[in-house]
């Protein structure tokens, strides 16, 4: 190894170390646990104070505009969770009763999830109704 190689390796190592540290900080800041509503119900007690991403289906007719925010219920495998949306962004167009949603936020004292972000995806109607012929 000549000295130029060494210099390059040291420079590279310094850059990678600095970036790893930055990545680690960003990771700590933005990591959240991704679980479904039923998984959430099973491990509720451990999750206070952590950022959670919870997936479930929005219960039809549960969406209520109350006071400053919006409340709805999501469900998965028979378990329900009440969500209060406290984010500032416009809810996505795909969000409505029956859609699949992922809500991100923390748990409040009274067991309601305070969501800062809501992602939603349309449930597919046809796929449930018809069987597919396999060739």
């Amino acid at each position, binding site marked *: 190894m000549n000295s130029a*190689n060494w210099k390059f390796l040291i420079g590279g190592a310094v850059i990678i170390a600095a970036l790893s540290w930055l990545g680690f900080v*960003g990771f700590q800041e933005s990591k959240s646990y*991704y679980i479904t509503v039923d998984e959430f119900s099973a491990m509720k007690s451990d999750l206070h104070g952590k950022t959670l991403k919870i997936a479930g289906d929005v219960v039809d007719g549960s969406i209520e505009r109350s006071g400053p925010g919006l409340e709805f219920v999501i469900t998965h495998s028979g378990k329900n969770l009440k969500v209060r949306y406290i984010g500032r962004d416009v809810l996505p*167009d*795909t969000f409505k009763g029956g859609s*699949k949603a992922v809500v991100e936020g923390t748990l409040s004292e009274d067991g309601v999830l305070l969501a800062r972000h809501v992602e939603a995806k349309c449930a597919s109607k046809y796929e449930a109704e018809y*069987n597919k012929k396999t060739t």
Partner: protein
Amino acid sequence: MSNLGTFCLLLALCLSLYGLFASLLGAALKQHRIVRSAERAAIASCASILLALVSLLYLLATSDFSVEHVAQSTSRDLPLFYKLAALWGAHDGSMLLWVFVTAVFSGIVVFQNRFRYRDMMPYVVAVLMFNLSFFLILNIFLSNPFDELVQVLPGGTMQKFSPPDGRGLNPLLQYWAMVIHPPILYLGFIGFVVPFAFAIAALITRQLGDTWIRTTRRWTLVTWLFLGVGLILGGKWAYVELGWGGYWGWDPVENSSLMPWLAGTAFLHSVIVQERKGMLKVWNVLLIVITYLLGIFGTFITRSGIINSVHAFADSKLGVFFLYYMLLVLGASLYLIIDRLPYLKSERRLDSVLSRESAFLFNNLLLLVACFAVLWGTMFPVLSNWVEGTKITVGPPFFNNVGVPIGLMLLLLTGVGPLFAWRKTSVESLKKAFLWPVILALLLCVVLLAAGMRSFYVLVSFTLSMFVLVTIVQEFWKGTRVRVRKTGENFALAMVNLTLKNKRRYGGYIVHLAVVLMFIGLTGNAFNRETSQAMVPGDEMQIGRYTLKMTEYHEGEAANYQYGRATLEVYSGGKLIRTMQPEKRFYKASEGQSTTEVALYSKPLEDLYVVLAGPSNDGKRYEITAHVNPLVWWVWFGAAVMVAGTLITLLPDKRSSFANAQLTIAEAAEIEMGVKAR
């Protein structure tokens, strides 16, 4: 018609498998005629897939809803254009488009090289046909777009079934950029198979000079260009159609197309070192393998459902197939590379850290680290699930924390790299080359500080942008002056001719210029502002230097949707400058899907972006969200410049006369001298 389609695909599969084995057999037996037959099979399979594609388009155009794909993604009232575009509106059909593009690329390669590289071509054809067969198998057996709908009758008998109308194309996809976005992205994902195939052929035949690189240079560049344009169009679509005010969200699907682009960018740069200095041979082969695999991986991410629900990782049969395919390709490539290591020895070694070689190495290091960070963040839910049993997702702060410094370091390299000399740069020449760029950049930095700007990254970004901008302008200035003296042309003509005579070099500078412009646009993000307000006609809201006055709210009905539309007058400095009409639409056909029609007023300095979010919570007013996004315009403008620069480097070289070529070399020498003399 649907049977014809399936038949054509099966025929194409037989042909491509024949192509795979016949080309290998022909190479082993050194029988040229067998290889020829394999090449013909490759072209025939391309024709067969074209026929399948045409029959699916016919089914779409005639609204034959007995076919599942047609029923899923079109409806009777859809305009013909969108009916045809629905080919890639759902998974099955888009796989067919994918297969078609793959087959066309393979066909073109076979045709282009029908008289060249006779020893390498059998293996190139074999790799291409292997790749094509894989996707054909997926397309035929796991996601056939010609599948018909069936109904289960009481008693368990199955019956063919044709619904009266289809579901309609998702209205979110009914936007021009979204219509052309998938095919363009496919061209970008798929094209890397060509340099990959040549790299593998070069490894097998032990011809590891730069032939495989030179001959696939255009393929690599075009592919890279399409991938970049695809990324930008995706961003444009998100910006204009989704209504959240941004264009990039570190979404896994976005990330999956960014990764091959980053690796491809690294490859484009590092091959220059092999062409010029015979170094980095192992690295380049490895890079193209990585790039190709990341392209496959990107498709895997978007196709396997791993993303939409993090649960479904490799649950779908498709996902498992992709995993095995990627492992097989990776394993075989690594084996070949290790086996051929003696042929991949570097012809030179690194002499100095202050050299062009070293700048390229740092460029590669940074791009690959960026690529790895994106991969890590995207796959973290899956990794953490394997290791700990809990899925942990990572948000934008992670990507930004790593991405922003990497981006800025790359920006710095964009400026210094091209001015470093090969092998070793003397401190003297550095002083001369960087005097003006450093002075002007520092000047800008001081001005910005005096103007009250305190954000570290913003200051660094603008300072570096200025630095790189001046280096590029300086390069054009020096080259043009030499040419003016030599030929007596006027300045503008000399600049054009200079660029056209050295397309790779000056086209490259234009691409670098585009990078600077895009960085200016990206930095604008730091100044984004956003306000929301519930309003009724007569109300006013303030954002930045604008006053928005709501004058009207109107509800109405169009052919296939209902809408609510707010009319807002925009005042700046007391003067009416624009009337904006954001809309909210509710589509009747698509399960009441709604879309947000953003009202956008875009200027180079800043965008005013207004969204009608819907009725306010009490139902009496209308929620209006306004964003002021400075400098976004430069992102799109920079992208256009990048396309132009890349096209210049792609222009064919005229078989220039000997004298002409001499002049160019002389010019180039003089330009180099000019750097040292000044």
